[in-house]
């Protein structure tokens, strides 16, 4: 009997343990000092292969005898893949790093300090991206490209309701009311429970902050009166019935689908999604409009400046060569080309200025939102933990589902955030 139960217990153990899957460590920096391994996120630029063919040709012409190995990584698994590679010492030489990850990897000691190499060139970099890549005054991420979220609307629905893009919060509600009364089967404005970046412009637009930095110590400010006021308005759009209960668990991808169905009047989404909408729903192609997220009584509310840095990992064998690659990628020529192909904005001021001087009615509002109101989330290594804990998602979801009031939910979020800031 003893033996048998031991066998079964062993089998149980086997099954439990085998549940803990393992990730491939991935191939990383090689021993060859003339070979540069680079990780780039997949899907940002639909034409990435030919882009990098051209980069490769230029790079190898400038640096004879070197080889450039560009590997594409899917966004979804990238964070895990980076941490696994960091643990195993198999990180690439250079990689595209999401702006909110840079402080985390830098604090972990995996990224190389780029401050000296960048030098005076820093003045020509987009400030929001520099902020996001700076930890303790040192720059760990070279600004590459960025984008912002703004309102995207369906012109047909707006025309039928006889409304124009709103420029204040009161007008947003008035527009939504008119759409609801004129077209009852349309969702006037979808409030996605899992899209925190959709809610932040309202926190900032009311003059609130997510958290404040007092000489290196971060304190949550999401429960301040101003922040609560902004969240109250934003979630109110859901609780007043301008959204749909289904949206309580929507992610940004679900927002896009809802908009593509033609049954949603307004969503908050990134500039990089416009081509996707036009491809997925060709019928909507000429009906997509955009406008910047307004502040409470006008102006433009700050919106999260999301994008990517190019980071050099400590494991890079030939750091000069690695930096040459970063320089080539962020040169005006390639920065502008990448941004244009991927529907983003370049991370250098000169290239950005050129890109934002556009007449395209779908791009101009985003350009305005980016230059006038691009803002970063709290730049602290602990922010990765707050993102991981989904503190802000829980806050929004609990309010739109009616499980908590804005006052209670923001207090809960602030407590959790402060605990994570303390570490």
């Amino acid at each position: 009997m003893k033996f048998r139960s031991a066998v079964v217990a062993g089998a149980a153990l086997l099954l439990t343990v085998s549940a803990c899957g393992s990730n491939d460590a991935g191939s990383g920096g090689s021993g060859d000092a003339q070979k540069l391994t680079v990780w780039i996120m997949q899907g940002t630029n639909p034409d990435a292969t030919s882009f990098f063919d051209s980069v490769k040709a230029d790079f190898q012409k400038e640096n004879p005898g070197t080889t450039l190995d560009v590997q594409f990584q899917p966004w979804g698994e990238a964070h895990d893949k980076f941490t696994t590679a960091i643990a195993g010492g198999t990180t690439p030489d250079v990689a595209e790093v999401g702006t909110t990850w840079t402080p985390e990897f830098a604090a972990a000691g995996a990224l190389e300090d780029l401050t000296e190499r960048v030098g005076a060139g820093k003045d020509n970099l987009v400030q929001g991206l520099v902020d996001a890549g700076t930890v303790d005054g040192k720059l760990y991420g070279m600004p590459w490209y960025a984008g912002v979220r703004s309102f995207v609307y369906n012109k047909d629905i707006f025309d039928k309701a006889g409304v124009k893009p709103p420029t204040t919060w009161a007008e947003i509600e008035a527009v939504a009311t008119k759409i609801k009364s004129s077209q009852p089967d349309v969702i006037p404005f979808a409030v996605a429970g899992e899209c925190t970046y959709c809610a932040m412009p309202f926190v900032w637009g009311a003059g609130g902050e997510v958290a404040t930095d007092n000489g290196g110590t971060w304190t949550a400010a999401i429960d301040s009166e101003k922040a609560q006021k902004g969240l109250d308005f934003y979630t109110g759009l859901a609780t007043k019935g301008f959204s749909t209960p289904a949206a309580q668990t929507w992610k940004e991808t679900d927002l896009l689908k809802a908009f593509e169905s033609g049954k949603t009047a307004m969503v908050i989404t990134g500039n990089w999604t416009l081509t996707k909408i036009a491809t997925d729903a060709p019928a909507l192609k000429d009906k997509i409009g955009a406008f910047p997220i307004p502040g409470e009584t006008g102006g433009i509310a700050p919106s999260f400046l999301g994008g990517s840095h190019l980071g050099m990992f400590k494991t890079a064998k030939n750091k000069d060569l690695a930096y040459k690659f970063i320089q080539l990628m962020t040169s005006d020529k390639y920065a502008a080309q990448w941004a244009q192909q991927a529907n983003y904005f370049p991370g250098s001021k000169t290239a950005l200025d050129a890109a934002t001087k556009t007449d395209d009615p779908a791009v101009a509002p985003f350009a305005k939102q980016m230059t006038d109101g691009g803002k970063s989330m709290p730049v602290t290594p602990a922010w990765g933990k707050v993102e991981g804990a989904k503190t802000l998602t829980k806050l929004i979801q609990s309010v739109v589902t009616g499980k908590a009031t804005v006052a209670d939910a923001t207090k809960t979020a602030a407590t959790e955030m402060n605990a994570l800031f303390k570490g």
Partner: protein
Amino acid sequence: MVDTQRLSRTTRPWLLLAPALVVLGALLIWPLVRVVQLSLQDFTLSNLVSGEDNYIGFGNYTEMLSSPLLWKTVLPNTVVFAVVCVVGTVALGTAVALLLHRLGPVWKWICSTAVMVAWAVPALTGTYVWVWLFDPLDGLVSHVLTALGLFDPSTTNWFTDRVSFYAIAALNVIHHGFPFVAITILAGLVTVPKELYEAAEIDGANAWKRFRSITVPVLKPVFAVVTILSTIWDFKVFTQVYLMPGGSGGNDEVLNLGVWSYQQSFAQGEYGKGAAIAVLLTVLLLLITAVYLRTLFKEKEL
């Protein structure tokens, strides 16, 4: 001569077992030891980079065990969900096995193929199908219920409520898990001597009585195996919960041990805390298995 023979008699089995033991040790025992080690540390991404240990004693355990989230949400979710799923899986699996056993060869083949398809579908795909079925706006279920006048999509989202969330997850897990039970029990049913049923029928036993008095006792070891395996699988459900809307941590109310552990380790980089939760899950499973085996084999010492 005699001595060497005895030596080879005692060492040979171990020599033959050695390769398997080495593999098991490397693949199972070492990771388990490592998880326990991790659970005693404050271990973050920077520890991963530097490779330095940072032992803090039982801090992670006291924090975990004193968390109201564990007792009010995570543990009840895990345990109740597992019980519902195990009962559902074994009951449905048994019913399907009995049905298959009565069918002729052609229908048996058709039905068991259909059943195997449910099993062959990866958990990820299956979950997306169930999520899509229950989509509050466009799902098949909501369309049918709306047409029947039983449901208003403008007022409800099933994924935000704890009970309805886990009800959908349970349907998914039971649907995915019952084929294994059905096929295993069917294999057992084939071995039950037909004479037993014939004798019982002559004695006037009805179908339920025959099932209770013949099938269940004869197949007890088979039931034991499928129940234990289902319990283990259903306790550590991760994919089916994580991939549901709101299941990846956006809603604390629907956390279970697996998702909580993943969230602590991989989303927040608190590998020590995540490991402590994983150890708790392992200990719970070992306890359940031990208790279950004891009660099962007590009556009839094997």
